[in-house]
């Protein structure tokens, strides 16, 4: 096994989790050899600064080089749909086809939709619920999330309604992106 200082981490951000992969150092993370573990999809990576800032992942895993710091910011955002290969860091499109992803530590697939809404880690006891109950639980959070988003957007629009149209759009963009 290669020593730790000869290894490099990379991450693959998918719709349901952030996977930490281990590669040989010379590859710069482009050729992952194994899956080290998974982080909740909502994990904020960073903040990082500079082109070569470092982020520690999963304790003992070697630090990740932040060549694509923009990816770190987006990784914490649940609302953005990430499209696999184009959104991965380090390993690029190879990550999604990596055999390690087949054995992703996500537990029972029945919980995948719940995990997608609630993030990780989830209580293992949820396995005791029926499929209908899990579906309802997932829907309850999705409804709450949607209603809150609508209410927050409405509050911002309400605040900006006094500004003339071009300005209100700009201010909105500046304030909440």
């Amino acid at each position, binding site marked *: 096994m290669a020593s730790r200082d000869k290894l490099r981490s990379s991450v693959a951000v998918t719709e349901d989790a952030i996977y930490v992969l281990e590669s040989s150092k010379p590859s710069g993370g482009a050729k992952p050899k194994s899956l080290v573990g998974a982080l909740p999809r*909502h994990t904020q990576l960073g903040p990082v600064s500079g082109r070569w800032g470092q982020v520690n992942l999963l304790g003992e895993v070697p630090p990740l080089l932040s060549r694509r710091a923009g990816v770190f910011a987006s990784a*914490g*955002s*649940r*609302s953005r749909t990430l499209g696999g290969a184009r959104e991965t860091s380090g390993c690029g499109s190879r990550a999604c086809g990596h055999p390690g992803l087949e054995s992703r530590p996500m537990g029972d697939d029945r919980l995948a939709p719940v995990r997608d*809404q*609630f*993030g*990780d*880690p*989830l*209580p293992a*006891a*949820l396995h*005791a*619920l*029926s499929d209908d*109950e899990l579906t*309802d*639980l997932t829907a*309850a*959070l999705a*409804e*709450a*999330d949607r*209603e*809150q988003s609508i*209410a*927050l957007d409405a*509050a*911002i629009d*309400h*605040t900006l309604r006094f500004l003339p149209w071009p300005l209100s759009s700009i201010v909105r963009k*500046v*304030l*909440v*992106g």
Partner: protein
Amino acid sequence: MTLEGHAEVMKLARLLGTAPERLAYLERLAPADVRALRERATVALFDNDRRFGRVALASRIPPAALTAWIAQHLFGALLCARVAGLLDTRRAVDLAERMAPEFLADLAVQLDPRRAREIIFALPPALIGGVAAELTRREEYIAMGRFVGHMTDAALEAAFEVIDDASLLRISYFVEEKDQLDHVVGLLATDRVRGAIRAATDADLWPQALDLLTRVSPQRAGALADLAAEEDDRVLDGMVRTAQRDGLWDVVLPVTQNMTAEGRRRFARLPALHAPDVLVALVDAAVAGGLLADLLPLAALMPAGAQRVVRERAPGDVG
């Protein structure tokens, strides 16, 4: 279903803005699991708050009075609750002092207290008292319970002054920080505790009162039970009825161990406790829960007829 589990489901339902009945199936899970799920839901719902960082920054530009006006009349409580945790503490307190208690009550319902802990600690007790009064008027017990672990003693005492005895019990059911509850109960004057005990009977809140006994230290629970034992039979009958109806003898029995000898004698002599069906349930709960060591000293203080029922129900154990 446990009392704690029911409270956890109610808290999750409140967070999701849905009816507790919809999530009743979660009561099959352990309370800790429902709580863990609620933690995840909180993270998921509040995950994007950082996007309001610039709103928080922008709020520093206008004078505080103008910002407070904008917050109340334009932003609204939900947006303010999301921005609050991102504000500088001094600025947030300055703004809060300029807002109406009614608006702060709206905001408190939407706020995750853990994200604004320093601000809550820094708020003047009188202001917290005003908000507590408004939340009590609205019967927002779940929201208030979430704040208990994030308040100074002075703020808690200011809140106690405006919350009636029955509401205190209702709030205790939803207190988030279990380890804080013992300390909080210790801040209550004895006459308030007596008032809460009477309210338990008058407002049918013994389930909440018995739940409280499981969430404080054994010594505190014993002291509370001693105070209850000083009440008249009518009050204690309410407790017996609730324990019998809801199967809560496994909660009551351990508490008797920490009562004074006088308090335990008073409880053991309570006529309502000597009804055959109550004694049977008491013994069954003791046997099932491994609580015979708690039952025996109590049974020894009961009248001969009651002792006979106990012996008949658990002959091998009582002897």
